[in-house]
């Protein structure tokens, strides 16, 4: 359970809705994940006038909170327009903000991101920014009005897992008290467990489940890993040491701890 924008969210697993073999498998995966928040891409699914009506209905029937996203937007203007369309369509002021800087790597354009976050926050949106692990950018986003940060741990869809755990650790300790969601780059449940162990509040992922051989089983597996990672964080895991430490007292020798 964690809080974001004054709302309590039960599951620490936020799931994307793209690229599943079928809407039926998506629905089954959502159920297996236990996710309370689903992110939905607006751009493509609403190309032109004929909105993805039936697809929306299927998502609404899942009885979860929808976090629309601006995936695929390459400019501030595009992202802001998409966010406003999403607010009308879904009746929510939540928006996962993506401003993509590079077509190939899908790296966020952090300058455009901060600008769009400010415009949308001023307009009453609750912005969930997809950002890098750069702390200064994170500060600027908070300043722009964001109350949650969503750093990547590797490029979108790369399935690499945390490529720079030190940066994530520094990010967590710098932003203590701010809800942090690792968004993008997770490939395996162990990756999710690893970032939860670092104290991140939640993870958001899509491809790792949608493109798995069995998306439903993978959703469940992630849910278990996320729970395990959080529990481990709360149980305060040992810090690594450079030398061996005997786990049983050695008889007849003084113990100075």
């Amino acid at each position, binding site marked *: 359970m964690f809080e974001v924008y004054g709302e309590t969210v039960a599951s620490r697993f936020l799931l994307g809705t793209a690229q599943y*073999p079928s*809407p039926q498998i998506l629905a089954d995966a959502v159920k297996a994940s236990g996710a309370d928040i689903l992110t939905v891409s607006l751009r493509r*699914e609403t*190309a*032109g006038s*004929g909105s993805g009506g039936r697809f929306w209905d299927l998502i609404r029937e899942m009885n979860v909170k929808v976090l629309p996203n601006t995936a695929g937007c390459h400019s501030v203007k595009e992202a802001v327009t998409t966010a406003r369309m999403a607010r009308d369509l879904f009746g929510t002021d939540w928006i996962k903000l993506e401003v993509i800087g590079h077509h190939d790597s899908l790296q966020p354009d952090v300058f455009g991101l901060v600008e769009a976050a400010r415009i949308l926050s001023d307009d009453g949106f609750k912005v969930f920014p997809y950002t890098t692990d750069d702390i200064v950018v994170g500060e600027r986003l908070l300043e722009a009005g964001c109350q949650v940060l969503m750093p990547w741990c590797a490029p979108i*869809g790369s399935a690499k897992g945390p490529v720079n755990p030190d940066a994530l650790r520094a990010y967590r300790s710098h932003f203590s008290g701010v809800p942090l969601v690792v968004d993008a780059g997770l490939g395996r449940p162990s990756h999710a467990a690893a970032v939860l162990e670092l104290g991140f509040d939640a993870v958001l992922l899509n491809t790792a489940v949608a493109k798995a051989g069995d998306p439903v089983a993978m959703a469940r597996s992630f849910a278990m890993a996320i729970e395990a990672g959080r529990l481990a964080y709360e149980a305060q895991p040992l810090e690594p040491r450079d030398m061996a430490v005997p786990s049983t007292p050695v008889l007849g020798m003084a113990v100075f701890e």
Partner: protein
Amino acid sequence: MKVGVKGAGVAGLALAYELVSRGVQVELLEKHKGLSASASWLAGGMLAPWCERESAEEDVLRLGQTSIGWWSKVLPGQVRHNGTLVVAAPRDTGELSRFVSRTSGFTWLDADALGALEPDLEGRFAKGLHFAGEAHLDPRQALTALQAKLSESGARIKFEAKQFTAATDLVADCTGMASQDTQLRPVRGEMLILHAPDVSLSRPVRFLHPRIPVYVVPRDNGVFMVGATMIESGDRGAVSVRSTMELLNAAYSLHPGFAEAKIIETGAGLRPAYPDNLPRLTFSGNTLSMNGFYRHGFLLAPHFAMEAAHRIVKHLQEKTLEANH
């Protein structure tokens, strides 16, 4: 026994054909002027059940295999039995491994074997997959030939019509997105037709990419079909710039000869799909519905048409028996 079939896409035509072969009198209604309004008109025409298994249910592989024999038998000479080639750009070879883990019925090709199979692609890819059991056809030729065959065998086909000329014992709805079934959703697909006389391919080539997988299907006379996007949308509007760019990029990465190709047609249509992306055959009273072929019209229509025709004949025989008692 007289059956009315609505919709002259691949499902309606295949069903009409199966009914006529069983001696049933058929009238086929199509509300548009010709065959070109159907989603089938924009299809790739790949009979590729093994490749489709990558993202489709086991049923597609199981039931789809029927299609290769069916089309070869019904339209002799139209099916090319050259298999399918699957390749990926060097940096996306991980996609090939992913594809392999989901599919069967392929052999690995090294650069030499690939070049021997498709000389135009020689030296362009270090490895690829060959699904030798697969086939392809030209959907427009196939639909036109099926229509001609039906007319020859005495079926009545009416275009721009909404009413059957005479009373029917049963009506089969094969109208896809035009049917009233609220379970169906549209999945928009966009495609291009290119004329590239400098490029020669003998079989469909699937070009894997983590975000934008595309295929190129050769037609006659240097013509290629490049498809297809998959967008959860009911928009019937023209192809978008983004989609065109992605499709052209992929074609160009496959073979630089496509740079000089002419874009002779762009198309966008709506695939009818149920939530599980599998077709459904449902009976209710004297109405049958056979819809939801999604991206598998040419692949699955033969199986479903045979099954539907079988059930229709049985149903009508039982009715006749009842009436005689």
